[in-house]
C-alpha cells in the first residue's frame, strides 16, 4: 500500500510537471505581447519595457520557464518562482498581487460551494438511488428516474439562470427575500448568511449531479442487490432497511466515490459557470477572468491549482477505494 501511494505520488508529480510545461508553453504562445496585456491601462512603451524586463519576457521561453521553476526574480518585493515557500506561482501585474495569494484568497468560496453542493447531491442521490433500486420499474422508480433525467440533461448555466430568475428575482419582486441573488458571506461571519447565499449555487450544481449520481447509485445498487451476499443477509433474517442501507449501500459506494471524487475535483478546481452566474468570487471566476483578460500568470496559476486539486482528489479516491478493496479483493 505504501509503495503504491509513493508510486502514485511520483506519477502525480510527473503529471503536474507536464501540465505546468504545457500550460506554460500554451500561454506563452496564446498571449502574444504579454507585457501589453499585463501593463496597467494607459501604460506607455517604457512601462511595458519595464515589465518585459522585470518578468524577463525578453528571454527565450525555456529560460523563462527556468525562472518560473526556480525562485525567479523578485517583483515588487515578491518572488515569482516555484522554489520558494509557499511556492510562488508568479505575479499578477494586472491585479498587482502575487498569484498564490490571489488564488488562496479565493479558495474558501470555492470550497464552500463544492462541499455544500456535494453534501446536498450525495444525500439526495443516495436516498433516491436506493429508493429507485428497491423496486426497479415501480412508479417510484420511474418518477425518480424521469426527474433525474431532466436534471442531468439541464446544463448548469440554464439551471443557474432559471434558479436565479425565479427564486431570487421573481420572489424578490413579490417582496419575498429568501435568496440573495449573488455574493458570498464567510462562514465565520455568519453561518446562516453563508448558507443562505450559497443555497442557489449549491442547488444549481446539485441538480445536475443528482441526475448523474442517482443513476450511478441505482445501477450500482441493482448490481449489488443481485449479489449472493445480499441474499445471505436476508437469509439471516436481517431487516430490509439494514439490507439496503448497511449491506448493499456499503458495497455500492465504490463507483459513487470514484465518480464523486472526479466531480468534486472539477468543482473545487473552479466551478466557472456557477461562480460566474452567482457572482461568487471563487477560483473559477478568477480563472476565467484572467484567461479572458490575458493575465497569464494567473492563468498558469489557476490551471496548476485545478490540476493539483484534481490529482489530490483522484489520489485520495484511489487510496480510499483501494483500502476498501483491500478488504474485498477477490483473486
Amino acid at each position, binding site marked *: 500500500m505504501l509503495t503504491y501511494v509513493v508510486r502514485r505520488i511520483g506519477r502525480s508529480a510527473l503529471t503536474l510537471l507536464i501540465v505546468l510545461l504545457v500550460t506554460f508553453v500554451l500561454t506563452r504562445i496564446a498571449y502574444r505581447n504579454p507585457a501589453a496585456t499585463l501593463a496597467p491601462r494607459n501604460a506607455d512603451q517604457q512601462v511595458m519595457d519595464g515589465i518585459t524586463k522585470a518578468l524577463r519576457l525578453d528571454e527565450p521561453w525555456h529560460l523563462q520557464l527556468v525562472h518560473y521553476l526556480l525562485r525567479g526574480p523578485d517583483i515588487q518585493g515578491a518572488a515569482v518562482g516555484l522554489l520558494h515557500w509557499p511556492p510562488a506561482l508568479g505575479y499578477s501585474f494586472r491585479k498587482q498581487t502575487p498569484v498564490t495569494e490571489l488564488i488562496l484568497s479565493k479558495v474558501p468560496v470555492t470550497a464552500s460551494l463544492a462541499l455544500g453542493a456535494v453534501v446536498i447531491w450525495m444525500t439526495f442521490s443516495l436516498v433516491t438511488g436506493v429508493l429507485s433500486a428497491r423496486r426497479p420499474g415501480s412508479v417510484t422508480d420511474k418518477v425518480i428516474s424521469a426527474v433525474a433525467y431532466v436534471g442531468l440533461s439541464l446544463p448548469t448555466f*440554464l439551471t443557474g439562470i432559471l434558479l436565479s430568475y425565479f427564486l431570487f428575482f421573481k420572489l424578490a419582486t413579490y417582496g419575498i427575500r429568501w435568496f440573495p441573488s449573488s455574493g458570498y458571506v464567510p462562514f465565520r461571519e455568519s453561518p446562516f448568511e453563508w448558507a443562505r447565499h450559497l443555497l442557489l449555487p449549491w442547488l444549481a450544481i446539485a441538480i445536475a449531479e443528482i441526475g448523474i449520481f442517482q443513476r450511478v447509485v441505482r445501477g450500482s445498487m441493482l448490481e449489488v442487490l443481485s449479489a449472493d451476499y445480499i441474499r445471505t443477509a436476508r437469509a439471516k433474517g436481517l431487516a430490509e432497511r439494514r439490507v439496503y442501507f448497511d449491506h448493499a449501500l456499503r458495497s455500492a459506494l465504490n463507483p459513487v466515490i470514484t465518480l464523486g471524487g472526479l466531480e468534486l475535483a472539477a468543482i473545487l478546481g473552479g466551478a466557472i459557470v456557477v461562480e460566474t452566474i452567482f457572482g461568487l468570487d471563487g477560483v473559477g471566476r478568477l480563472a476565467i477572468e484572467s484567461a479572458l483578460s490575458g493575465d497569464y500568470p494567473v492563468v498558469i496559476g489557476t490551471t496548476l491549482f485545478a490540476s493539483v486539486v484534481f490529482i489530490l482528489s483522484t489520489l485520495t479516491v484511489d487510496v480510499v477505494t483501494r483500502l476498501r478493496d483491500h478488504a474485498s479483493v477477490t483473486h
Partner: protein
Amino acid sequence: MSDVAPARATLFLEAPEPEVAGLARSVLRDRSVRIGVTVVGVVVLLAVAAPLVAALVGHGPTEQFQSEALDSSGVPIGPSSSFWLGADGNGRDVLVRVLYGARVSLLVGIPATTIAMVIGTLVGLLAGFFGGWVDQVLSQVTDVVLSFPFVVTALSLVALNRTEDGSSRVSPVLLVIGIVAAFSWTYFARLTRGLTAELRSRPFVEASETIGSGSWRIIRRDVLPNIAPAVIVYWAVQLPTNIVAEATLSFLGIGVQAPTPSWGNMIADAQRTSLYQVQPWFLIGPAVGLVATVVGFNAISNGVRNVLDPHHGTR
C-alpha cells in the same frame, strides 16, 4: 461528466446477443430508446430542414429585421405570424436561429464525440492490450489531459487560434470540435483500457495466441468486435455531455462565435440583454432545443444500456 460506464462496462462483454441485427431489434423495442429516437429524430429533421424553414419564412439565420421585428426603442416582438418564436434583440428570427443552432449542436457534438471515440479507443486498446510501459506512458498522457481544467484550457486554445492577422487559424467551429474531443477522449480511453485488459485475459484471446495470431490480428478480430458495443453505447452516453459542453463554451463566449447561432450563445444573449423578460421565447426556444436534444440522446443511451446490461433496467 459521467464515467459510470467504465465502472460497469465489463457487463457489456457479456452481451446476450452477438448479432447486430438482433441487438438492434431488441434495442428498438425499448421504450426509452423509442422516445429518445423520436426526439432526436425530430431534432435532426429540424436541423436538416433549417434552410427550408428559413426560406419558407424568408428570414436568414443572421439576417436582421430591425424595421419589422423591433419596435422603435429596439425591443423585439414576441411570436407573430411571420416570426413564429419572435425575434431577438437584433431583430433576427428566433425560430430560424434555433433551428440553425440545432445544426451547430449536432455538427459539433457528433464529430467531436466520434473523434474522441476513435482516439480514446485506440489509446485504450494499446494501453490495455500491451500493458507495461505502453500502458504507463498512455496512462500518464491520459492523466495529464484529465487534470487540465476544461474551460480555462479551452480559452487558451481559443487565444492560440488567433493568427497574426487577427483571423482564426482554423474555423472556430472546428476548434470547438477539437477542444471538446480533446477533453472527452480520455473517458473512452479509460473505458476501452479496462475492457481490453479484461478481454486480454480471456481464454479466447489466449486461444488465438496459441494458434499463432499476432497482436494486431487479435486486437482487430478478438478485442475490437467485443468492445465495440460498449464503446458505441458510451458514444451515445458521451454525446449529450459534449453537446452541453459546446453550449457551455458558447455560453461563456468562447465557443461558436456571433453572429453564428448556437444554443449556448443564444441563451447567453437572451440572458445578458435581459430580453428574455420581455420576449421569453428568446430564451425558451434555444433552451428547449438544447434540453430536448440532450434528454433525447440520454434516453437512447440509457435504453441501450438497459438492453445490454440487465442490471440496469427494469424487469
